[in-house]
């Protein structure tokens, strides 16, 4: 077993921030797309999230 954590440089942090921003844009666009064009998939996605939250509460 190893701990994969390591310290991040400032450059790495900036890159990581940009990656999260890009990921957020893509996920958001996909969710909006599903909402408009594939509501079944959209509902299923949130249903699975709700079920996970329910299992945890």
């Amino acid at each position: 077993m190893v701990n994969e954590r390591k310290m991040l440089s400032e450059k790495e942090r900036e890159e990581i921030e940009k990656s999260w921003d890009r990921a957020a844009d893509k996920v958001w666009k996909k969710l909006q797309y599903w909402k408009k064009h594939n509501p079944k998939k959209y509902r299923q996605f949130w249903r699975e999230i709700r079920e996970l939250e329910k299992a945890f509460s």
Partner: protein
Amino acid sequence: MEKFYLDTNILFGYFLKKILERKGIYKESKVADFLITSSKKLKYAVSILTKAEIVRKLKSEFGLKEKDIRNMWKTFLFEISPLYISVPQSLEEIYEEIVNIVFKIPMKKRVTNLEHLIIAKRNDLTFVTGDKEIIEKCKNFYEKIWSYNKLRGIYENKKI
């Protein structure tokens, strides 16, 4: 110290929460909040299988780029600081155990969570899962299987 091997669903909750926050959506997420808070006191573990499932979901469902997923995984490692479990057993060994289980116990779902279960067992970790079938049917095979609820309940009662 007890170490907990988490199934993929709980981890995906973490990624989703952080993604939605970037869009200004602060949905309450008991799963992700618990994971972040409890990681200060509990020791979590993940494996290459966990990573593969997270990558698959982020790539196939949302089309994220490899570089971005790798960077998101770095954040997860930095924030939650899990142990990374190597899986030295051959696929043959792992699936031999899975075959033994499914011969004895009728399992309806696919075997991915059984793969996680074998990895947890081989590393003497408590397997935390939301898979009711695993929780209900596999206790005889490996007793250290906990539901999310049990982990949270015991953590909040400060028994850990």
